[in-house]
């Protein structure tokens, strides 16, 4: 099972099921318009006009927000009228999305783990996990590779460059 995921992509055709490009265009435009609206709202709150000592803090972002919201709506129009140049195309097909998530979800866990375990332990686990889950490696090669990554990173940053990276209980135990 674990070895087959990477070989699925070539059979993907453009007619495959997935998230349509237009749906994603609409979602992105709406998100950007909301960001613009948030900027307008916050700028209006702190003052977007002319103060006693020149332009107020909100002056510049206020107009940025208006342009962003405006362009987002303009992007939206042709799609809503069904005339988008990418009508009917896929943003990402389900098999593609599964591949993307197979990288993205472990990465989310990796980032979430760094404050708890420290960066070195988390990186070692990430390397070993990717090798076993996405590649066809057994723990016999994956575990040493993960350890090697952590040790090389530690030697490079903590010892050579004297740059401290997040450390966890393991490093505390080892006395660093």
């Amino acid at each position: 099972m674990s070895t087959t995921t990477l070989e699925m992509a070539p059979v993907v055709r453009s007619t495959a099921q997935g998230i349509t490009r237009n749906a994603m265009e609409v979602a992105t435009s709406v998100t950007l318009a909301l960001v613009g609206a948030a900027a307008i709202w916050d700028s209006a709150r702190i003052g977007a006009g002319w103060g006693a000592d020149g332009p107020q803090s909100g002056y510049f972002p206020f107009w940025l927000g208006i342009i962003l919201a405006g362009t987002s709506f303009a992007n939206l129009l042709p799609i809503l009228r069904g005339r988008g140049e990418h009508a009917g195309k896929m943003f990402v097909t389900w098999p593609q999305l599964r591949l993307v998530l197979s990288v993205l979800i472990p990465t989310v866990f990796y980032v979430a783990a760094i404050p708890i375990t420290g960066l070195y332990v988390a990186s070692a686990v990430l390397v070993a996990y990717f090798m076993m889950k996405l590649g066809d490696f057994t723990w016999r090669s994956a575990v040493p590779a993960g350890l090697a990554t952590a040790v090389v990173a530690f030697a490079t940053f903590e010892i050579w460059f004297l740059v401290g990276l997040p450390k966890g209980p393991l490093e505390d135990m080892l006395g660093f």
Partner: protein
Amino acid sequence: MEEIGLLMQGFAVALQPDNMLLMLIGVVLGVLIGVLPGLGGANGIAILLPLTFAMPPVSAVIMLSCIYWGALFGGAITSILFNIPGEPWSVATTFDGYPMAQQGRAGEALTAAFTSSFVGAFVAVVMITFVAPVIAGFALRFGPPEFFAVMFLSFASFVGMAKGSPLKSLAAMMLGFLLAAVGMDTVTGQLRMTFGSSEMIRGFDFLVAVIGLFGISEILCSIEDGLSFKGQKAKIDLKVVLRTWKEMPKHALLAARSAIIGVWMGITPAGATPASFMSYGVARKMSKDPAGFGHGKIEGVIAPETAAHAAGTSALLPMLTLGVPGSPTAAVLLGGLIMWGLQPGPMLFVEQKEFVWGLIASMYLGNIAGLLVVLVAVPWFAAILRVPFPIIAALILTVCAIGAYTVSNAEFDIVLMLIFGVVGYVMKKLDYPLAPLVLALVLGDRTEEAFRQSLLVSEGSMGIFFHNWLSGGIMAAGIALLAWPLLGWLRGVIASGMGRARAA
């Protein structure tokens, strides 16, 4: 010829053993970065930038700019051998480079690519040597309105010359400006758009954004295609190199034309990627055998590579002289200058002669070093892509996380990096250009400052930007560029309206 003397002083700086070593490290790292998917010039430099804080600025900039040259060289390796453009500007190189490799002419294609990259870079560096001091001297007279006008022009040219939707360029740019504005207002000290979150007070660091937008998103994009690298064998020996070099003078005119296209596109903030495509297109159009392009024609390798490298190099000209970078990588280097405590802009040429000329001299030497390194070590660099993707992906994610953390020793920045990665993935797939976003993020504060200072002088009147022929002229050029897509759109509307009228 005052420049020659200054350049010689620069060589004295760049030829110091420490700096030579850094140059070599930079070039090797750069080629590595250029070969690996997910690590490009911009985010490779972004990751390594925090490690250079302890170095003298001139050594730091020599190493980082050499990473950039290395990445420019490295992009060609994967395009030719694997049909995978390591960098966006090497996409056009795949058109003829990969067919050549399939025909067993990989060595020839690689030699041609590296040599023409070198030629392109050389032309651009010579141009920088003589033009930069002139522009910098001219720009010394700039006030806030002129600086705002220059930035306005460079952002307008993103909209006017965008290959895709101008609206999307504009939206990406505005997003970049807004992200730059988050946090403490540098003029009044007021908090903006933090929405009560204490993590937002620091604002968004452009290095974190670059690592996410260019690094993480690239990993996500490349996993979609399944990624089993199938490469052609790279055999490159002295015989092939010499034979190809003997052929090269025949294409001197092509190289010269491509270099000019590249230099021009690099100075205007369009960058290396469109330059390579444009140069390829022009070469095909002007060739006697246009049908042969795409099937392994050496001209199809020379044209884009010369232009891309010329553009990548000359993108540093506006960065050095005006403080307005011409490409995302130049933008990251500009961010570096600010972090090392240097003030980018024309004053650099007056106050930091050693820095400027050391950098320019290192451009000459770095490109020679780069050419030698890639010619000698191509098979080793190509072997890197034979490392299975899961290992490469995990290592790149780790390196990106380390890079994001070291920017300001904040764990939250790693989370931001991941968010920027997903944002970048969506934007890339929807053809929102990332370059204007990054440039706006880097230049946001300085643009706003120039804008507000100008308005302070004029007490709120926009007329200040047209107060003399200089800023007025630049602003007018910017407005013309902004209006360009609008004109095309209007013409389309009128034409379809007339077509409809005729049909009725």
